[in-house]
């Protein structure tokens, strides 16, 4: 399989503010690619360029084998773009919104009707087709927002932070939809600042910060390359963790403590022995797999989210 997206040396500025500098990555056909980064990192700008909404200052972009600059009209026919905000007519029903956006995407007549029924089923809102969008919850609106980009069966779907501020039920629906798209061979470009979403959905990812890609590749590859294993210990209330001289720094985490280390087995053994000697009550002691959170921390020195 080839690449659905190829980006090289992409740069974009707004006046004297640089949004993207020398961005480059590739997205495999049929994969789900995560674009991970904090707010203002350049994710939306990248997605708007790929959707043809913004023109880059420089760089080469190929989407579905077509040159973005020269063959934009043909690209538009094959992509579905889901903006970060709810871009729907609140006064119209879900079905009327989908009819309108479907027609704008070139789907008409019986095919459009059947596609509307299909995508409403897909987003779990078939029974609310005739209701005005303004009567929907935030999560339901987000689902219709996505559905409006699927009607013309795009080969590439670009989702710009589609789960911001929604309920768990809607989030699960969206996750299932994305997994369904992947099963159907659709390439998904997914931007988010939620690391757990990338871990749950994406095959590959690029970590973007201050307009630069600071790491990209397969999820496991990035975790192996940049992530550090850790050992987590949780004791009974009021007990303190034994010191581990020369094995690493102990940091509080959740209801226990953690030690980031390249030798997790050694730390685990030392901590287990110390707890046994001091007769401490161990509630949890385990090796923790490297996470994107630790990757991001190690690469940028900051956490991804403030919350």
């Amino acid at each position, binding site marked *: 399989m080839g690449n659905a997206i190829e980006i090289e040396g992409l740069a974009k500025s707004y006046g004297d503010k640089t949004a993207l500098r020398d961005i480059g990555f590739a997205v495999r056909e049929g994969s789900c690619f995560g674009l991970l980064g904090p707010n203002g990192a350049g994710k939306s700008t990248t997605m708007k360029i790929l959707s*043809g909404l913004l023109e880059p200052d420089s760089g080469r972009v190929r989407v579905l084998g077509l040159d973005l600059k020269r063959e934009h009209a043909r690209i*538009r026919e094959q*992509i*579905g773009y889901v*903006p970060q905000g709810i*871009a729907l*007519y609140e*006064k119209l029903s879900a079905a009327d919104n989908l009819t309108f*956006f479907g027609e704008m995407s*070139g789907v008409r007549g019986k095919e459009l009707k059947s596609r509307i029924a299909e995508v409403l089923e897909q987003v779990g809102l078939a029974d609310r087709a005739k209701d005005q969008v303004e009567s929907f919850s935030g999560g339901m609106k987000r689902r219709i927002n996505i559905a409006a980009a699927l009607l013309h069966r795009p080969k590439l779907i670009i989702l710009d932070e589609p789960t911001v501020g929604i309920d768990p039920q809607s989030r699960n629906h969206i996750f299932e939809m994305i997994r369904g798209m992947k099963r159907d061979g659709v390439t998904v470009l997914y931007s988010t600042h939620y690391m757990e979403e990338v871990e749950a959905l994406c095959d590959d990812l690029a970590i973007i910060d201050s307009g630069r890609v600071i790491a990209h590749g397969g999820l496991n590859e990035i975790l192996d390359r940049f992530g550090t294993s850790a050992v987590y210990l949780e004791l009974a209330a009021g007990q303190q963790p034994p010191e581990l001289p020369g094995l690493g720094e102990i940091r509080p985490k959740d209801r226990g403590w953690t030690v980031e280390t390249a030798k997790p087995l050694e730390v685990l053994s030392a901590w287990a022995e110390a707890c046994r000697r001091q007769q401490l009550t161990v509630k949890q002691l385990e090796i923790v797999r490297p996470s994107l959170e630790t990757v991001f921390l190690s690469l940028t020195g900051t956490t991804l989210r403030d919350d």
Partner: protein
Amino acid sequence: MILSIAIKEWKLILKEKGAFFWLLLMPIGFIVLFGSVFGSIGKTTVTVPYIDLAGTAESQAFIKAVGERGGYKLEPKEAGALDEQITRIRDGKQSVLLVVREGFGRGLSGAPDGKSTVELYSDASSELTGPLNSVLENLANEYREAKIGSALQAAGVAETERSRLMESPLVIEEKPQNATNANAITQVVPGYTVMFVFFVIISMIRRFIGDKTAGITARLQTTRMTPVSYLLGIWLAYLGVAIVQCAALLSFGHFAYGLELGDAVATAVLVLMLAICGTGLGLAICMLVRSENQGMAFTQLLTMGGAVLGGLWFPIEFMPRALQTVARFVPQYWAQKGFQDIMIRGAHLSGIWPSLAALAAFAAAGILVALFRYKGFMKSALSG
């Protein structure tokens, strides 16, 4: 695509009650209100209080004649109420008082020692004083003519000669040139129809700015829709709205007030051109403004300023000469003139071409500005 955008827009308008208020209910309310106020002035009976101090048959005949000539309802007051009535006029509580003095009747038939006096007490600010005074002067002239006729008869002048002598050397012949009489309805119905057509711009601004801020304009740019389809689709939608609005308001005037619409083809073409003009200027405003509030300010200026200058609220002849010249630079003037040419002067299509040409010129200017600014509008929508 253009039709799909227009259909979506019509669905949205049908869901928005505010649009019905602005575009239909409010103008109908204005037509009813001002049509009733100005249309019933000639039909209203004005009451004139009087005190008959003479109490003679002649004084009663005189009072009856005042009522009949002026269409007034005469209301008798007691002789003792004279001071109180005058105080009421001074306090602004009453407009006029007619007092027929003692001895009225003497001398009316030509007696040399007789003099009949009628006093008209009035509030200087009252609109009633002038017409009532004219009625009284006309009656005084008739008494004078009767007195001269009696004197001529007494001098032995024959009846035919008396008639010839009493004839006025000035002959006034009324020759109306209009198909229909101009009245309050021929002013108010087309006036408010023209005025409120321009209110469609408010809905257009809400759509363009609303779509832009909601990210819909940007989203649509990722579909197969071409930018010009978006502009034309929304324009087509509101063009239809303006035509339906005009048809509804003119029909209301016709069925509720008996307004003569004149040549149907000329009226239809004028309505179409007015709708193109109003929505064309609307497109220009939508592309020029950066926010809904700014758009509202522009629209108020165009609708209200144009309504006053264009003679939509009152006949243009009431305005100073300089403003009548300025009025030619607002589209409302030409639309109102076109409607009144058709309705009052019985004009056909060939007779309203100046109005059609002027409206087409305003429309073309608006559309050109919109097209010139459209790229900037789209750019701002995409960068948001």
